[in-house]
C-alpha cells in the first residue's frame, strides 16, 4: 500500500508508532499531487515548501512524545478559509491578490495541533454553485470521470480527497456545498450543526446558513477531523458554548433499535440513486434499525425559500467588496461611485452578480414582504416539520443529490437546473441541522451515489453511528477512482 492511500486514522497509527514520518507521508502526497493534479485541478495554490517545514516540526513533536488527532497529517483547505500569510481567493478575481493577516479559527486549531497544509482547494466563486464551474480560475474535474463535475461548491476539496491528493480536507456548506460534492466524488462529508464549528475567518456567503465541516475518505476520519475543529470560539458569537464530545466514541458499529426515517416525497430522482438509497435502507433494517416513514410537508418550498434567504444575506455580506480596504480595484478616474461599480462588476463573476441582484431585489423597498419575509416564514414552517419528524425517528435518510455527477457544462446555462442539485441538502441548512453524505454504491455509469443522513441539532454522534455501521456492513469502503 502506498502512503497516499492511507486514511487519516491509519496514518495516525503509523505516525504514533514512529513507523513512518510526517515528512515521508507529506512527500508521498506531494508526489501524488504532481502525478494527478494536471488531470484533476483540485488545487488553486500548493504550499509544498511550507508543508514540508510543518511536517518536520510535526515529526519533532511526535519524537518528543506529543500526540494529537491530526499531528503530522497532510490536509487540504477550501480556499474560503483564511490562512495567515497565504493567499485566500474564494475562487474570485476580486480576492485574486488577497493575503489574509490572520488564520480562520479552524485553521488555527489544526495548525496548533500540528496538521500539515498541502494547499488551498478550488471552489465555486464565493461558494455559490454546485459544480465548481463558477470558479474564476477554471473548473475542477471529477476523478471518477474527468468529463464530469466534482460537485460544488467544495468541489476542489472533494476531488482532492477522492484523487488521494490529501488525507482529508475542510469544506464549507451553505446549501449542500460539502455533502453534494462528497456524493459526486464518492467520499464522506459532514455539515455539522449550525454553531458547532466556529465561522471566524470563513469568508461569509450567507451567515445564518454557512458552516465548516470535514471531507474525508471514511467515517472514522470524519469523526476524528470533526473533533479537531469543533467547539466554542469567543470570536464567533454564533458558535455554541457547548464542549465538543469525543466523536470517535460514536463509532460503535451497531444500529439496533435506532429509528431511521425516510421520506415519501422523492420526485425527480435518478433511478440508480433511488435504488442505492433503498438498498441502504434495507441493509440498515436488516441490521436491526426500525424504518419509519416521515413527512416534511414544506420541504418542496425549501428551495425557493433558500434562493431568497441566501442571496439576500449574500448581497449584504458582499457589499464589503468595494475596492477600498482589500481586493481588486478599478475605475478610480471616474470618482468614488464609479470605482465601486467598476471594481465589483469586473471583480465578481456571473453567478455571484446574479445572486447579488436577486438578493438586493428581494430586500428592496416594496418587495421585502412578498419575498424575503415570506421566505423567512416558510423557513419557520420547515423547522417545525423537522421537529415533528424527529419525534418519530432518530435520523432521516435520503439521497444527497437527485443525480450522480453531471457533465461539465451541462447545467451552466440553466441556473434553476443547477440549483435543483441541492434539493435534498438545502432544507438542512435552513433548519441548522447536522447532516452527512456517505457513499452508497455506484450508478450504471460507475459514478458514486451519495446517501444523506440528517440528525436533530447536535446529534452528530447519532449520524456518525449510523454512517459507520452502514459503511462497515455495505462493503463500499475504500472504493477509489483509477487515475
Amino acid at each position, binding site marked *: 500500500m502506498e502512503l497516499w492511500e492511507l486514511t487519516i486514522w491509519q496514518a495516525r497509527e503509523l505516525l504514533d508508532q514512529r513507523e513512518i514520518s510526517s515528512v515521508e507521508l507529506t512527500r508521498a502526497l506531494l508526489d501524488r499531487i504532481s502525478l494527478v493534479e494536471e488531470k484533476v485541478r483540485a488545487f488553486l495554490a500548493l504550499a509544498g515548501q511550507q508543508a514540508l517545514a510543518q511536517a518536520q516540526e510535526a515529526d519533532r513533536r511526535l519524537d518528543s512524545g506529543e500526540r494529537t488527532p491530526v499531528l503530522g497529517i497532510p490536509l487540504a483547505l477550501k480556499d474560503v478559509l483564511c490562512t495567515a500569510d497565504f493567499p485566500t481567493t474564494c475562487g474570485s478575481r476580486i480576492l485574486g491578490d488577497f493575503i489574509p493577516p490572520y488564520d480562520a479559527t479552524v485553521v488555527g486549531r489544526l495548525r496548533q495541533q500540528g496538521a500539515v497544509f498541502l494547499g488551498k482547494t478550488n471552489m465555486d466563486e464565493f461558494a455559490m454553485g454546485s459544480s465548481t464551474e463558477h470558479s474564476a480560475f477554471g473548473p475542477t474535474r471529477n476523478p471518477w470521470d474527468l468529463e464530469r463535475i466534482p460537485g460544488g461548491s467544495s468541489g476542489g476539496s472533494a476531488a482532492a480527497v477522492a484523487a488521494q491528493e490529501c488525507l482529508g480536507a475542510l469544506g464549507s456548506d451553505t446549501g449542500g456545498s460539502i455533502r453534494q460534492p462528497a456524493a459526486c466524488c464518492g467520499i464522506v462529508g459532514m455539515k455539522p450543526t449550525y454553531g458547532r464549528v466556529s465561522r471566524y475567518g470563513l469568508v461569509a456567503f450567507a451567515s445564518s446558513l454557512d458552516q465548516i465541516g470535514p471531507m474525508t475518505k471514511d467515517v472514522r476520519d470524519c469523526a476524528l477531523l470533526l473533533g479537531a475543529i469543533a467547539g466554542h470560539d469567543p470570536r464567533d458569537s454564533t458558535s455554541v458554548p457547548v464542549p465538543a464530545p469525543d466523536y470517535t466514541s460514536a463509532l460503535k458499529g451497531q444500529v439496533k433499535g435506532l429509528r431511521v426515517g425516510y421520506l415519501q416525497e422523492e420526485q425527480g430522482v435518478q433511478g440508480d440513486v433511488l435504488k442505492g438509497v433503498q438498498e441502504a435502507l434495507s441493509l440498515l433494517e436488516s441490521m436491526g434499525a426500525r424504518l419509519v416513514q416521515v413527512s416534511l410537508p414544506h420541504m418542496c418550498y425549501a428551495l425557493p425559500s433558500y*434562493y431568497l434567504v441566501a442571496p439576500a444575506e449574500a448581497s449584504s455580506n458582499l457589499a464589503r467588496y468595494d475596492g477600498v480596504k*482589500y*481586493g481588486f480595484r478599478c475605475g478610480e478616474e471616474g470618482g468614488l461611485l464609479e470605482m465601486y461599480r*467598476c471594481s465589483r462588476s469586473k471583480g465578481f463573476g456571473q453567478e455571484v452578480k446574479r445572486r*447579488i441582484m436577486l438578493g438586493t431585489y428581494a430586500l428592496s423597498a416594496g418587495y421585502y414582504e412578498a419575498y424575503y419575509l415570506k421566505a423567512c416564514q416558510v423557513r419557520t414552517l420547515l423547522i417545525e416539520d423537522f421537529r415533528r419528524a424527529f419525534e418519530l425517528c432518530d435520523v432521516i435518510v435520503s439521497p444527497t443529490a437527485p443525480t450522480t455527477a453531471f457533465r461539465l457544462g451541462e447545467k451552466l446555462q440553466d441556473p434553476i437546473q443547477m440549483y435543483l442539485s441541492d434539493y435534498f441538502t438545502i432544507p438542512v441548512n435552513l433548519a*441548522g441541522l447536522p447532516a452527512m453524505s456517505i457513499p452508497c454504491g455506484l450508478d450504471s455509469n460507475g459514478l458514486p451515489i451519495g446517501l444523506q443522513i440528517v440528525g436533530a441539532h447536535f446529534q452528530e454522534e447519532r449520524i456518525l453511528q449510523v454512517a459507520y455501521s452502514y459503511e462497515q456492513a455495505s462493503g463500499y469502503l475504500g472504493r477509489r477512482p483509477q487515475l
Partner: protein
Amino acid sequence: MGITRQDVEHVAELARLSFNEEELERLTGELNSILGHMEQLRQVSTQGVRPTTHAMELFNVFREDLVLPSMEPEKVMANAPKCSGESFQVPRVIE
C-alpha cells in the same frame, strides 16, 4: 409580479453593479424565471407565522470590556489597493 428591465437597472444601481445591454437583457430574463419559481411560496399560508432569520436561538453575547492587542496596522494595510500611512486612499469625494 414580473421584473422589468427598468427594475433590473434600478437594482443594479442599488447593488453598485453595472451591466452592458446584453447582460441587462439576459439578467431580466433570468431573474424573471428564477422569481417565477419563487412564486410557489404564495401557495403557503403564513399568516401569523413568526419569521426565522436564524435556525438556532441566539442571545446577546457579552464579554469583559478589556483592552486586547489589535492586529498590526502594517498587516491590515498590506492588502489595501491604495493607502497612505494608516489611511485607505479613495478618489476625491469633496471638490
